[in-house]
């Protein structure tokens, strides 16, 4: 059965800290892994990763995929209170759907 496991489930840091969020997966016929940020309701797209070892960056956020070890990490440097959210990891399933993990709830304190 395809599954995605995220860790930690919750995390509290102070502004300026660097955080690393983890995502491991098991999926038949891997095609892509995606990261989303969910602040209130709609998950918003951050990254899509398809190739191992290639880092994707957007400002203070970056992500990398290891297809051999079946995991991905999302790094956030110099965290701000606006980074407080649930971060969701998902893999593309065989039906073209997304299989999500439970998410990591990040709280950034001023």
């Amino acid at each position, binding site marked *: 059965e395809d599954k995605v496991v995220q860790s930690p489930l919750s995390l509290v840091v102070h502004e300026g800290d660097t955080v690393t969020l983890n995502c491991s997966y098991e999926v038949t016929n891997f095609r892509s892994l995606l990261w989303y940020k969910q602040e209130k*309701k*709609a998950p918003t797209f951050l990254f*899509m990763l398809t190739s191992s070892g290639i880092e994707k960056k957007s400002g203070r956020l970056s992500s990398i995929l290891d297809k051999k070890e079946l995991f991905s990490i999302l790094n956030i440097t110099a965290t701000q209170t606006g980074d407080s959210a649930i971060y969701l990891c998902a893999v593309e399933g065989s*039906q*073209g*759907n*997304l*299989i999500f993990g*439970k*998410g990591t709830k990040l709280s950034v304190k001023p």
Partner: protein
Amino acid sequence: DAGVTQSPTHLIKTRGQHVTLRCSPISGHKSVSWYQQVLGQGPQFIFQYYEKEERGRGNFPDRFSARQFPNYSSELNVNALLLGDSALYLCASSFHGDREAFFGQGTRLTVV
């Protein structure tokens, strides 16, 4: 340009009732998927429709059904509501598949 729109935004229903949730995809998108997100969990796949045909179905009981209309909007229907159906229902709109999808703001369903 309008994003994915869902209605209603909030809904309270009683156990045993029926509910219909609606989704209008981004203009030009032909694929709509539905996801259920219960508190503390990630979204779970319910259905995917493409060009008005069901293309995928998650592990949900037959009380859940959906359809897509000629204008690509979609409805999710849930019969015989249970307390456990209380969740945020998300609609995802894309050209072909959910890896490129945009999510709506969701419908928060509370079953009492």
